[in-house]
């Protein structure tokens, strides 16, 4: 039943793409994951307020810290991409402008995610 649309209809991508439930669900799942991850992050930031370079890099290079930071990045970036997608769809109505904004949203999320992951891996694998 999910493939009742013609190929042309799907290519045009107009109307509901029937992705709403998946979007809603992933938004909630990442939100739930973000709670403990963000609490960890804020606690770590507070505990390292004003800490010097050696202390901070030693902390970030610990495998368990790097692991939690990676999970935080994945969940947070995913969540924020879903969230801004809704904002874009609500306020930007021009077809090309909306398409461009949605693509830039994906690019931004990927750029934030990959650069953060790269930094964390460099610190923990060094």
């Amino acid at each position, binding site marked *: 039943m999910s493939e009742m649309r013609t190929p042309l209809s799907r290519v045009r991508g107009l109307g509901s793409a029937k992705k709403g439930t998946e979007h809603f669900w992933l938004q*909630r799942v990442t*939100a739930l994951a973000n709670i403990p991850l963000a609490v960890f992050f*804020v606690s770590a930031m507070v505990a390292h*307020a004003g800490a010097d370079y050696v202390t901070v890099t030693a902390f970030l290079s610990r495998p368990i810290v790097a692991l939690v930071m990676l999970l935080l990045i994945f969940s947070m970036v995913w969540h924020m991409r879903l969230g*801004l997608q809704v904002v874009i769809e609500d306020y930007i109505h021009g077809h090309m402008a909306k398409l461009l904004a949605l693509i830039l949203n994906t690019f931004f999320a990927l750029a*934030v995610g990959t650069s*953060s992951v790269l930094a964390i891996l*460099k610190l923990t694998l060094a």
Partner: protein
Amino acid sequence: MSDTADKTVNGETRQRPLSPHIQIYRWTLTMFLSILHRATGVALYAGTLLLVWWLMAAATGPEAFALFQGVAGSWIGRLVLFGYTWALFHHMFGGIKHFIWDTGAGFELSAVEWISRGATVIPILLTLISWVLAYKFMGAF
């Protein structure tokens, strides 16, 4: 809205009735929080650039990290980070509020009000506690 939907058969523009918007309604805490939830979400989105900068600086070396610390430690840097802390807690408790409502619970008007008040006050308290602790860790007192 397509171009044809607002035209009459004669091609004249039809004056469509407009639904009431935010300037019409009396302000309520729930609608204020709804707007703030989106605003803090967008602010947190932009603020991830700070997180990237912090991580990249730490991964790059002492000079890059010192530059970040210099900016983050300035009064305007601290103001932005304070705002970011509040936005994070506010968005988090806004999310928890929605989790409660997702279960179908807490929709009695009194419950809605109390949940909303909690989602307003608790993030402010947690932000203040975090910053008092941060200054304590920095040896301010």
